[in-house]
C-alpha cells in the first residue's frame, strides 16, 4: 500500500488574490503631512476597495492616522484614473491619494 503523494499546485506570490505590491503616491498637504510623496507597500489581502484602503491608512499609526483622519476629504486615483470609494482596487499598480483638486 503506497499513499499517493498529494500534489498541491502553488501559485506565484504576485498572483495570490488580494495581496500585491503597489506604489502609493501622495500629493499636496497629504504629502506634507506624511513626509514623503511615494512608498512601496504590500497591501494586506483583506483590502479590496478604495474605501478599505482609506480606512487601512488610518490604522498605520503616525503620521498616517492624522493625515487620513477624515477619509471623506481624500480623493484616490488607481493607475492615473479617478476612483470612487466603492471601486475595486483589483490589479492597480499605482495608487494615489490627494485632496480635492484646485487647478485652473
Amino acid at each position, binding site marked *: 500500500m503506497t499513499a499517493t503523494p498529494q500534489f498541491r499546485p502553488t501559485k506565484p506570490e504576485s498572483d495570490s488574490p488580494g495581496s500585491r505590491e503597489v506604489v502609493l*503616491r501622495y*500629493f*499636496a*498637504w497629504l504629502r506634507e503631512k506624511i513626509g514623503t510623496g511615494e512608498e512601496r507597500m504590500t497591501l494586506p489581502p483583506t483590502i479590496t476597495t478604495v474605501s478599505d484602503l482609506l480606512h487601512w491608512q488610518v490604522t498605520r499609526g503616525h503620521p498616517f492616522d492624522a493625515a487620513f483622519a477624515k477619509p471623506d476629504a481624500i480623493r484616490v*486615483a488607481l493607475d*492615473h*484614473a*479617478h476612483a470612487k470609494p466603492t471601486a475595486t482596487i483589483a490589479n492597480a499598480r499605482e495608487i*494615489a491619494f*490627494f*485632496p*480635492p*483638486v*484646485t*487647478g*485652473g
Partner: protein
Amino acid sequence: MSVRVGTADFDVSAEMARIAGNDTDIGGVAVFVGKVRGRADGQDLVSMTLEHYPGMTETELERIETEAQHRFNLSASLIVHRIGTLKPGDNIVLVIACAPHRHDAFAAAGFLMDYLKTRAPFWKQETLANGKSRWVAAKESDDTAAAAWRSKPAD
C-alpha cells in the same frame, strides 16, 4: 486637439494660430485665460505654487478634451496649464476652443474649464505677504458647475 503642462508661459495669439491654422471651416474661437489674483480672502498674495501629478495630469486633460469632442462640434482645442511658482498677474491656464459656430466654441471652453477645475490633478499653494503658506481649498461651486454638465448628456 492637444494638452500641455509645463512651467513656461504661453502666447495666446501664437497658440491660437498654431491650433486653428488655415482651417477655414472654423467660424468662432473662444479663449479663456486663468490668472493669479493678487489678493485671496482679503490677504495680499506674494506667489502661488502649482503642484501636479505627472502622468495622470496629461491623461486626465486628454480625457476631458475627448469628452468635449463628443459633446460639441469642435474643430480644434487646446489646454495649456502651468506648474511651479507664479506671481500675481501671471497666466495659469489657457483653454482655446475652435468651432464652426460660436455656441459650440463658448460652451466647449466653459465645459473644458469646469471639468479641468474638478478633475485635473493640480493643487495650488498660496504664499501670503505675512510669510504664511496655505493650500487652496476646493470650492463647492466648482463641483456644482461640473455636475451641471453631467446632467446634460452628450448628443
